[in-house]
């Protein structure tokens, strides 16, 4: 059976380029649906089982989402699709963590930078689908502060560069202890620390004396925690505002 893929990208040239990347990445036959704006994407998704994907007979397995779209931000779609059982990947021109971090918090499984060479993109896409999400040093740093200070501090965004002024260290730790699922294990924070210093997965594995796929597992787990914690946060916010 063909794997269903949704590509949401407003630039037709880029869209066809991404189609090529997807086709090249997977040997299985796949069925690619293209969408140029959020509206079309939502229609396709509801045809394929709705946002939760629960009663969907044949949901999308892979969704590529561009951030800047004519009728809104791809981030919105990601937020709607938190429970959708697909690998969600952000394709963007923005490589700074101010753009990527919120996407990861909203459940993106990884990101692709559109200006990368074709071969690089293919390799990265394969990695993400296999469960090796990318983590740039800036994002790793951002993750560290996120987990160190609990999840309530995103109101004051501290991007990678802002950390340099040393403000985050002077900020007091919130009195409420973060829930267990929001905490990183010592191993995970060690991995994050190495990543934030620019070490590669292989280097980290040898530094920590573990196998590289174990490092990968840690990264996946960190992703999951980020996702969970942001979801919990959203739930708290929603109940506070009387939405639920």
């Amino acid at each position: 059976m063909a794997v269903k893929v949704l590509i949401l990208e407003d630039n037709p040239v880029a869209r066809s380029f991404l189609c090529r990347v997807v086709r090249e990445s997977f040997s299985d036959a796949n069925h690619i649906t293209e969408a140029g704006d959020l509206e079309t994407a939502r229609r396709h998704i509801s045809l394929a089982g709705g946002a939760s994907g629960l009663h969907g007979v044949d949901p999308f397995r892979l969704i590529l989402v561009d951030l800047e779209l004519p009728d809104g931000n791809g981030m919105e779609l990601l937020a709607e699709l938190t429970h959708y059982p697909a690998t969600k990947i952000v394709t963007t021109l923005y490589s700074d963590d101010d753009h990527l971090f919120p996407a990861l918090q909203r459940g993106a499984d990884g990101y692709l930078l559109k200006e990368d060479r074709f071969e690089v993109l293919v390799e990265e896409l394969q990695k993400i689908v296999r469960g090796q999400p990318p983590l740039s040093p800036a994002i790793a740093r951002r993750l560290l502060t996120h987990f160190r200070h609990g999840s309530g501090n995103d109101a004051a965004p501290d991007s990678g560069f802002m950390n340099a002024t040393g403000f985050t260290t002077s900020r007091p730790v919130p009195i409420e202890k973060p829930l267990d699922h929001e905490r990183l294990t010592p191993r995970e924070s060690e991995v994050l620390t190495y990543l934030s210093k620019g070490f590669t997965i292989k280097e980290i594995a040898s530094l920590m004396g573990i196998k590289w796929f174990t490092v990968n597992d840690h990264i996946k787990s960190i992703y999951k925690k980020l996702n969970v914690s942001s979801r919990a946060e959203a739930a708290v916010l929603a109940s506070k505002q009387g939405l639920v």
Partner: protein
Amino acid sequence: MGWRLRLLVLAALLGCLGMFSLVRWVAASGHLDASFEAAADNTLVLTGSPLPALRAARGRTVVALVTPDGTRLALDGLAVQRSPRWQVDDSRRVAQVIEQEQIARTLAGGRVALQFAGGASVEVLTPARGYAGLGLAFWPLAALALLLFLVGTVVVLLRTQPRNLLYMVMAYAQAGTLLFIAIGSVRGLGPPPGAAAAELLPRLAFDLFTVAAAVHSFALYPRRVPGAGVIAAAAWAAAASLLLLAALGVLPAVWWCAQALVLALGVVALLVISASYRIEANPFAAVMRRFGLIAVGTLALVSIAVAAASGQNGVAGLVAAIGPIAWYLFFASLLLLAPFLSHSKQLLREFAMLAGISTIATSLDLLFVAVFSLSQFTSLTLAVFLALGAYAGARQWILNQINGNTVLTTERTFEQLYRVAHEVQEQPAKHALLLGQVLRDLFEPLDVLRVERAAPTARVVGGGSGLVVPVRPARDDAARPPLSLVLRFARRGKRLFTHEDARLADRVVEHLRRAVAYDQAVERGRSEERLRIAQDLHDDIGARLLTLMYKAQSPEMEDYLRHTLLDLKTLTRGLSAAEHRLSHAAAEWKADLTQRLTAAHVQLGWALEYDRDVRLSVVQWSALTRVLRELISNALYHAQASRVDVNFNLAGSRLSLSVADDGSGHDPKSWAHGLGLGGVRKRVKLLGGEVRWRANLPRGIVCEVTVPDFRGKS
């Protein structure tokens, strides 16, 4: 109503009541409404009287008073001598007391005859003097005594502690002395009965207690000196034993002994306060030492004058009588001033100075009369002129001593504020430190402490020895604990803080806050503008470049466009971020290079060394980023290398970066410098360094970048 207030009201009532009964007693005493003067030969001369019967007898010598029942009381100059306390000669003092008591008794009869030299006799009435007959000097003196009494009470009630009790002792003693002076100043002949007899011992006690209390309080405050207990005990013991001897009547030359002890204890007090100042340069000690020096000095002058004029009548005697009174008034005003030193307004300071200078004038006047035997008029004129000269000359100096001359002109203060505001803007964490610097230059305190305490405004503490200034950062950060600076001992311990200083400090804090807020607003505006430009560039040009890249006809074109796009991204990122920490930037470089090289199946050797994690400016960051990217691209796409070694080293301010590959490139000198290498040269030049290429061994090319003076933003 608090108990302190109740006690104060009670004390005020008691004071007024006491004053009232004293006035009644004095007013009830009989008097002869005429003025007399002791002539040089110790005879009594009538100098004037409103009584018609005596008007004709002006200038004649009075020899005796005769009562209606025929008792005759011989009179001489001693009848108008002022204070037994300041009578130098013991036998004269005894005679004076006896004579004045007899006069009081005689005048109480209500009618008396004055017998003049040459036999003439005039009969006059001697009624009770009444409230109106107390004279002009009596009322202000009594009021001052009452004021001193109340101030002494208030000081103790506000805070009951040893030094305030000592102050109370001094204030009460001086109030008592002033009352005696007031009684002595009443108009006409005829002291209240018993006043002269009762004067010596209480006034001795007042003077001795005052000076002993001064020694004691200086030993305790502002700083306890070593052996304070012993010094205080010795002072009190000396005073008490002299008093006891005088009371028993076994002390010879009472005045000499008393003056010697008072002056000696005064000098001891000065020594103690000097020692205290050496231990801790508290401006309160400095001011007290200055006051003490003036008080002891003038007292010595007055004592010398009185001793020199002893036994002489006429002008010298008269002036010698006024000298001590002037001194007591001066001392009382100093005493009144002491608790309010830090509150002192210009007026009070001027008053203190005027009092000091008039005391000097009087002392000089006495000295001229007594020592040089000048005539009254000459000596007074001379003394007034000298004192005025001294006042004019010393006024500024004294004011500077009290205020501290303003070293910082307004202009300099402004410049400094401006500079500090800039620094605070750059390093908000240093706000307190920099504010401390400004205040330090403004007030030259000995000590600046930080306390974690909030204060609404700056205020003077410790009676002027300290100033608490709140630190208010421009951005109100609730998480940061409130902070105040405590400045201690202005002008290196020579001056007290005043309320004007506190207001000035408040204004400095406020100006600094505003300046920083303004700077921050400007900087925020700038960075918002930069961010907007960056966003526009990135979104519009970036998207077009991307489309162009996808549509590129050849791989070279594609690479060229990708490169342009990456440069654009670096540029926009540089615009949107203010600075980058070297370690963070290096982490990103490494991750970026690893990704690119891994995709091209090229190995990366990465070595990074730095002794300081500097902050890179935007220019430095973007230059290094682009140089690295360009060099790696060369190695990848032109040289087809299989391994690239990057070596980054920052030692002190010297930066060296080398990128070595094992590709096919050789003979760098023969290269045509295209856009890529030219870009590298340009960027390195921008950093102030140089770049060179040489052949790598066994194969490939090494590019070496060195920047000798690479300074991050610390």
